[in-house]
């Protein structure tokens, strides 16, 4: 199931907006496609990101994939737990497998992203 309270990109990232704080992760569909994730490369705190610019990368047994920032802002926290336990991304992509938190420069950017229903339809069409 795709959580209703998140917004989604075509590159399969999700964004949770709480005030001007955004939390970013990858979707369940993305982790399923990537397969077992073995390494996650995240930006440092303080990194300024533009919407759709590369945020980091995830490496699975199959391939390395870039992650793109769903919104513009500054990184305030990176999920340090993923360094030792990248499997959290596979096990709980919408929870413990979050990637970064950021201070959003324009929370309204979330409006340009897909809703849960739209994302569900998009993933269905992609298959």
């Amino acid at each position: 199931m795709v959580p209703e309270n998140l917004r989604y990109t075509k590159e399969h990232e999700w964004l949770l907006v709480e005030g001007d704080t955004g939390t970013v992760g990858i979707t369940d569909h993305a982790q399923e496609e990537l397969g077992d994730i073995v390494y996650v490369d995240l930006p440092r705190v303080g990194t300024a990101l533009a919407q759709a610019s590369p945020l980091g990368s995830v490496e699975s047994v199959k391939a390395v994939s870039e992650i793109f920032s769903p919104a513009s802002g500054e990184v305030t926290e990176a999920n340090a737990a993923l360094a030792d336990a990248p499997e959290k991304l596979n096990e709980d992509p919408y929870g413990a497998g979050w990637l970064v938190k950021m201070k959003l420069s324009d929370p309204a950017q979330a409006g340009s992203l897909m809703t849960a229903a739209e994302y569900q339809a998009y993933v269905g069409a992609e298959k």
Partner: protein
Amino acid sequence: MIEKVRHHLSQNEPLLFERSSPGKRAYQLPELDVPAVDPAEALGAENVRAEIAGFPEVSEVEAIRHFTRLSTWNYAIDHGMYPLGSCTMKYNPRINELVARTEALAWAHPYQPEALAQGSMEVMARLEAALAEITGMDAVTLQPAAGAHGELTGILLIRALLQKRGNPRRKILIPDSAHGTNPATAAIAGYAVENIKSSESGVLDVAALEQLVTDDVAALMVTNPNTLGVFEENIIHAAEILHAKGAMLYMDGANMNALVGIARPGDFGVDVMHLNLHKTFSTPHGGGGPGAGPVAVKAPFEPFLPAPRLKRSGKRWTYDYKRKHSIGRVKAFYGNFGVLVRALAYILAHGGAGLRNATVDAVLNAVYIRKKLEPYYDLPYPSPNMHEVVFSDERQARHGVRTGDLAKRLIDYGFHPYTVSFPLIVHGALMIEPTETEGKMEIDQFVDAMISIAREAEADPQLVKSAPHGTRTSRVDEVAAARKPVLRWKPA
């Protein structure tokens, strides 16, 4: 416990460290015939140690047996078919080795004066000329040491030419079916990468290309035939679109073995391309190198080629270092010379007609496999394929069996696996490339194995999912190996 109850070929082999006994030696040195020097005095006591802790100590025959036994575990093209798609694992004819071992070539030294290296220089000049003729290009550099190195050299050449014309531009376009090295090359050369989605038939979408080519685009990097094994039939049109905007067409020559003797990239609009001698021209892939990735260019790029350039001066070959527009050296000396000798041997042994035959046979073999396996495996892009064929695991995945499982099971049938999960635009790809090396008998055995595995995937999926069963080591835990790698041996 009795350890030796099986033929050695099926026994496991301990590490050399585990075979070690203190004091054993595999060498004997002659008596010292010069005055002895105390290393501590000569080098300083802090730089000298009495022993290397944990270094294995074995006798000569133990060392020989250890490595010989391990060598019998290898799978090689000399054992059987090696259908690893995209890698072009063709047989390396022994004549290549004979020629490369010719004393005057094998012992040539890069610091030899030009007057004493005329033969080696002639070899390189002839190879450059042969590759230029085969590709329909105007000039060739033999320096790059591998395909990706050739790509980088090629894109730097494009950057240099555009720079000279006033603007290196900002972007490189790359189809989504490309080898991963293409975007990496563009990025290292300082370009932003823009992806082009393939059309439904698995080829370049010319309408999309037309939209994307602007004054900011330096080049399109395209593999032809592409990674699906499909010929880019709109390549001439694509070249026209690019050239109209002052952009270049770069061709990744990874699949040139499907074109040699049939079509020349220089004739269909390519400006710069690389070749993989270890693929198309049968030099060894061994252990990650050495390889060779020569770059072929059209005349406008010639001044920018890496220095030095071979030059004819009267009756002699000489090296021209004074090349003011050159992008500079990309490799020490003159490339991997031994590999270049082998490639020339292959080209000359085959001759034009022979090279063309090799291409035709490689395509015939792949098409034969496609026709035989089409009833059993899903074919996501039905466009006519050339030297390789890409299936997907869609039918088997319904039983929980994925491409990686099918590949592991193929090991039990005595074949090296095909290429798994590439190209990325095919979900669960099985990429099969037989090359011209295989005859009908071997290919039929492979086809029978694949059909049998397709049946097993339906009737007994678990058998396939837990394969291989007939090897010394059963399926290894790739995920744990990547997440928690054990990088060195430690005594128990």
